[in-house]
């Protein structure tokens, strides 16, 4: 059991072109251990419209080396806030089309409140701290996606002592 716990207590972060299997990733967060009460996950998908324009495809650029480090840092910040059992983050790069999966964040914890909070925290920080940039293809041509103010405020609320009511 302790060897399995050692494995499952880990943080796994991947930056990859390949798609991923949501069922496999979610299940793996609880495999081989019976202290997980809940697993919260988020899967981000490419939408076919943004800012009023149709999007036929997008290309994700990133900063190799820094990307993995930034994601690992974000997970460590989450682990410092909540007692988490296992964490998985996958971010795809390269060309994607509407409906494709972009990102996966999965968090296993003893209690659901911690799993939900950490999963959303990681997504909010990833959106503002991890060096990825989207370039969309639209009928009007290619364009770099503008950062959203809503993403900055989503990340900021975690530093304003605004922890969820139930901790």
């Amino acid at each position, binding site marked *: 059991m302790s060897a399995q716990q050692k494995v499952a207590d880990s943080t796994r972060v991947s930056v990859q072109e390949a798609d991923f299997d949501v069922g496999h990733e979610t299940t793996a967060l609880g495999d081989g251990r019976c202290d997980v009460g809940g697993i919260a996950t988020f899967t981000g998908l490419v939408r076919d419209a943004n800012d009023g324009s149709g999007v036929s495809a997008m290309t*994700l650029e990133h900063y190799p080396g820094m990307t993995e480090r930034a994601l690992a840092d974000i997970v460590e910040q989450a682990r410092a806030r909540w007692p988490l059992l296992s964490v998985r983050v996958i971010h795809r790069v390269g060309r994607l089309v509407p409906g494709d999966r972009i990102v996966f964040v999965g968090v296993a914890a003893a209690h659901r409140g911690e799993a939900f909070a950490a999963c959303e925290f990681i997504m909010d920080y990833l*959106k503002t701290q991890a060096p990825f940039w989207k370039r969309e293809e639209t009928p009007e041509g290619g364009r*770099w996606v503008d950062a959203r103010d809503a993403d900055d405020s989503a990340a900021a609320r975690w530093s304003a002592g605004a922890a969820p009511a139930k901790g």
Partner: protein
Amino acid sequence: MALRILYFAALREALGVSAEDFDPPAGVASVSALRACLAARGGVWERLSAANVKAAVNQRMAGGDAPVAPGDEVAFFPPVTGG
């Protein structure tokens, strides 16, 4: 030993450069001083002065006060839009 400077996304496209090795003048020892020094090249380089240009030093997000020293990897880029 020079600084290694990287540019990403819309900034990389606008500059037409993705990376360069750069020996800053003496006294340029912070991210903001380096930004000002590069922007002083004029033309497209003035984009480096834009308030929303972000920086990283040795692959960590860095504010304007962050020190830069020979051998460092410094990156400039627009606000991130992943996830």
